[in-house]
């Protein structure tokens, strides 16, 4: 038996969320007294053997020129899972993981739990903790099938870095021609992807209009944070939809979430309440968001934010 981790990549580089999944898989393997291995489909420019530092002993590498396709990639992962004798498959709960993990569950007749935030408890069965109700709760779910598929919520499990080196085994498997094809990729230039960001600066209707986002972007730039917004802001077209955090938008769990001019409706809180530290800046002292915050400032965003930016600049190079 073994634990198999899917290694996702974009633009020639392994995704940070895969480092989390690799560490998670390695820790699961320790609990089950077995080894963790990885599977990589396609080419990356990164040092693959170096992934051993996240605890994996071996990386199976499948060569292909085809762009990402859940159906054919899943078949390749299944080949590797069989070869590696994998009983537990680990993915990141990111866009590609969401497409692949369920397909592997069907192929292996495995129970699947996604959005996992902690290591499993294995003393009685295999019980994982996942987010439910869009961040308003957690469920502990027992996977009762012999094979198991889990995917790990980004930013829930810090990568554990050791000093190992992984061996690389090339798999002689040729993917079938996929029925879907990526014909173009539009990269969001120079932005930190929201779901991967450890620091997030977010703003709401309190900013009065899209023309006032310059100070938000400047603050985000200073502390190397991603930008986000509340639903009314995205719905008004002030900011792109992919920046909308909340129950019907993106759910995030950064180390720091700075909310500026956002009142803190229950739907918004659901998307951000797993943030480790929440700072709220709002001119209304009665804004419900203050109850969910660690630090708060009652004040006008147009005065506070530029000052905050200047203060951060003093301590960040």
């Amino acid at each position, binding site marked *: 038996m073994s634990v198999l981790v899917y290694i996702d990549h974009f633009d020639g580089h392994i995704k940070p969320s895969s480092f989390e999944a690799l560490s998670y898989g390695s820790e699961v393997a320790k609990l089950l007294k077995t080894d963790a291995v990885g599977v990589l489909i396609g080419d990356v420019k990164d040092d693959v053997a170096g992934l051993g530092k996240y605890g994996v002993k071996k990386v199976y590498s499948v060569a292909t020129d085809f762009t990402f396709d859940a159906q054919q990639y899943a078949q390749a992962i299944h080949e590797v899972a069989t070869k590696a004798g994998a009983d537990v498959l680990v993915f990141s709960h990111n866009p590609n993981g969401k497409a692949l993990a369920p397909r592997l569950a069907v192929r292996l007749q495995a129970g699947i739990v*996604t959005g996992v935030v902690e290591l499993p408890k294995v003393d009685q069965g295999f019980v994982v903790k996942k987010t439910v*109700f869009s961040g308003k709760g957690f469920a502990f779910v027992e996977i009762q099938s012999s094979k198991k598929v889990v995917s790990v919520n980004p930013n829930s499990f810090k990568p554990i870095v050791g000093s190992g080196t992984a061996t690389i085994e090339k798999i002689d498997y040729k993917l079938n021609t996929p029925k879907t094809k990526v014909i173009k990729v539009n990269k969001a230039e120079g932005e930190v992807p929201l779901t991967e960001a450890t620091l997030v600066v977010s703003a709401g209707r309190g900013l009065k209009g899209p023309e006032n986002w310059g100070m938000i972007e400047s603050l985000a730039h200073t502390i190397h944070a991603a930008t986000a917004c509340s639903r009314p802001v995205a719905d008004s077209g002030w900011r792109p939809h992919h920046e909308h955090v909340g129950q019907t938008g993106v759910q995030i769990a950064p180390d720091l979430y700075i909310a500026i001019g956002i009142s803190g409706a229950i739907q918004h809180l659901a998307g951000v309440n797993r943030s480790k530290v929440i700072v709220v800046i709002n001119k209304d002292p009665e804004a419900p968001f203050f109850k969910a915050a660690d630090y*708060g400032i009652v004040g006008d965003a147009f005065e506070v934010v530029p000052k905050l930016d200047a203060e951060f600049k003093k301590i960040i190079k």
Partner: protein
Amino acid sequence: MKILVCISKVPDTTSRIAFTNNNTQFDETDIQWILNPYDEWYALVKALELKEQESGSVVHLLTVGTADVDPIIRKGLAIGGDEAIRINLNSADSYLIAQQIAQVAQAGGYDLVLTGKETIDYNSSVIGGLVAEFMNAPYVSLASKLTSQSNVVSIEREIEGGEEIIEASLPLVVSCQKGMAEQRIANMKGIMGARSKPLKVVEPTNTNTQTKIVRFELPPAKTGVKMVAADNVAELVRLLHEEAKII
């Protein structure tokens, strides 16, 4: 085009979440139930837009649940679904739910199966992928735009750090999110008409589950906010740097 839209009943987004029976059950007291927003706003309305483009198209709704889901199904029919199927099963096991959906979808010979990107109760985001694999069909997740022309489908899909433009052929399974379609509200004619549209109830072919919810937990409450004066922003930066050690 024959389109199947998978819909689900979920607690309203404003619901306060609580658990009961020693934290083993979701407390349904005072909960308002709604059609899962991703299913309604994006999957269902997208299906209706496609139907309006191509004459002879039909939009069927499918849900897995007991009779208490019927008002939600009628809402979907009021917005514009032609008919509905309910698989009479109450389960939280994604594998079983998707297996049952796939059997109905396969038998119905649908060109396109649409789901919301996730339900706002369990947030698993797996039904589309599971159904696709059970049907041996291609799957595009997290689509924010979809156009169809002579059976070639062009899709925008969210990825970390951008978006992909994908070309695919039918049959196809797609999970839908913001951007796919403009929200629609049922009008009186739709609501009246929905009462007489067919709602077929079928029994599940099995009830074997792979997972079991052991218990629930609420997120830890914040211990209290530390307020900083608006004219002392430097103090906030100091706290984040020295106390929270985040910056």
